[in-house]
């Protein structure tokens, strides 16, 4: 379905929002106490390297020139050099991004599918025991304190029962030993299980509750009555006529709740030492590695915006009423 005008409009929107965030971040760095050079340039460097960096970032220029150089540097991919790693931050974060995306997409997609399915069932049997059990469990999942839940999983499933590794993303020995690809993939999956389970449970609750209430409001629509009047079976009404309409607002909320899941994602990565962007950000912030923190933040903002864009496009594709 071609809706080029709509897609273009959304792209422009995302571009503008990102630019605002980029600008806000620049001024935050300049407004905070301490001079920008000590924030962006590692004091441990040799004087020549320092001079080079200062020159590259324009830190000795007036504010507005610094801003222009900052924007230019961002688009050419020069985000500074990490204090801790002593490497350009862009190379560090690209490496981390894939792990975050792996964890995020799997948990979100899984939770969305299961949540939508269960929410549909719960709404259909509104007021029954099944509905009560599911809704209350979903509420509990939704309000669980993520680090605590993660620590409990780690303690019980990882430490006590020894089912899963206590952290990291792969077993070093396996990777040095040149094992076959399938073993390596299984190894990553093994490490993935606990963080995935954490994020899945947390997200599941919100999707289930959303789908349930969306489904309830769709079930009171007139076209459901029409479907009944046609003599359609309850299953067809539920799965075809109600669920499809009810899932639309849930898709929108996936985008809106992304900020929420990012919070959870960072905490989960931190506890399971999953080498993603979230953990890197917390590390950078704890160690005053400003260039790294800034880059992580911008990348997270970009990921959130892109995910929102994808969600919007998905919505436009599924809802025939949206035309531009």
């Amino acid at each position, binding site marked *: 379905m071609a809706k080029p005008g709509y897609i273009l409009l959304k792209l422009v*929107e995302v571009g503008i929002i990102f630019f605002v965030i980029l600008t806000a971040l620049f001024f935050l760095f300049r407004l905070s106490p301490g001079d920008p050079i000590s924030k962006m340039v590692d004091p441990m460097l040799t004087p020549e390297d320092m001079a080079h960096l200062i020159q590259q970032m324009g830190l000795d220029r007036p504010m507005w020139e610094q801003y222009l150089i900052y924007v230019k540097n961002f688009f050419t991919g020069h985000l500074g050099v990490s204090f801790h790693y002593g490497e350009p931050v862009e190379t560090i974060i690209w490496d981390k991004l894939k792990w975050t995306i792996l964890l995020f997409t799997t948990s979100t997609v899984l939770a969305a599918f299961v949540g939508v399915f269960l929410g549909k069932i719960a709404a259909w049997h509104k007021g029954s025991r099944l509905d009560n059990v599911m809704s209350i469990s979903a509420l509990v999942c939704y309000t669980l304190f993520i680090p605590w839940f993660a620590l409990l999983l780690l303690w019980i499933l990882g430490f006590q029962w020894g089912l899963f590794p206590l952290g990291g993303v792969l077993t070093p020995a396996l990777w040095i030993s040149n094992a076959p690809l399938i073993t390596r993939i299984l190894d990553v999956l093994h490490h993935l299980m606990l963080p995935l389970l954490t994020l899945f449970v947390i997200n599941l609750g919100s999707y289930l509750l959303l789908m349930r209430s969306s489904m309830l409001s769709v079930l009171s629509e007139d076209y459901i009555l029409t479907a009944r009047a046609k003599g359609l079976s309850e299953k067809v009404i539920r799965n075809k006529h109600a669920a499809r309409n009810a899932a639309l607002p849930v898709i929108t909320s996936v985008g809106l709740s992304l900020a929420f899941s990012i919070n959870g994602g960072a905490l989960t990565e931190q506890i399971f030492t999953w080498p993603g962007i979230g953990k890197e950000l917390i590390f950078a912030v704890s160690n005053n590695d400003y260039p790294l923190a800034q880059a992580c933040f911008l990348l997270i903002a970009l990921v959130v915006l892109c995910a929102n864009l994808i969600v919007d496009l998905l919505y436009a594709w599924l809802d025939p009423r949206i035309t531009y």
Partner: protein
Amino acid sequence: MEKTDTKNRLLVELKQVTKAYAPKKRWFVRSSQPVLALNSIDLGIEHGEVFGLVGQSGSGKTTTGRLLAKLESPTAGEIYFDKTPISQLKGVRLKAYRSRVQMIFQDPYQSLNPHLSIAETVLEPLMVQGIGTRDTRMEKVVHTLDLVGLSPGEAFCHRYPHQLSGGQRQRVAIARAIVLEPQFIVADEPTSMLDATIAIQLFKLLQEIKETFGMTFLFITHNLAAARYMCDRIAVIHEGHIVEVNTAENIIRHPEHPYTKKLIKVQPGFKYGR
């Protein structure tokens, strides 16, 4: 008594009034052409008459009423009230205009604030216009409620809208509109959401009010029969154009415009055959 020509007896006059609605903007960009609700209409309403404006949904009839109540402003053209142009009214003069022109809305279930008691609802125009003292205002409210058939007025004062039927709510809305004793009332489909037996009683009430206060009415409706029952003159509006203006009897008996003819033909009635 000096002889007055028609022009001087006009209370309300619309001159080439156009109203265009801009489509929604996103990021300050318009995506399509504006919609013309009213396309350069001319209309005159005389002192003391009930003027009917008949049209289908989307014809611009409600827009006309809203322009007169100054809920919206015309895109082009000018509206004269008592020979004064109203588009530039501001501050004190706008407030004075508001005390002279009131409106009755369509939906009795949405035209009263559920959080205000009946007395508070009818009191509000007096309060914002700063008329009377606390006691005289209350007296006026009770009196007005009696007048619209909610008697005894004291008994209704402390009730809330959810305790009233649709017909009673619409009576409260009428009381709110007449409590300032305005010169001109815009009644926008005041009975279209009510049952026929209730509607006819409200029509009677409006006629009584008109006779008591000598107000001028703009009666907006989709129902030609109701317009004929209520009005002295009728204008038929179609897609933003006034297609025909005439006395009520002449519009029905000798329609000239094809649209009016069609409207009369499809009006449901008891034609027993096919």
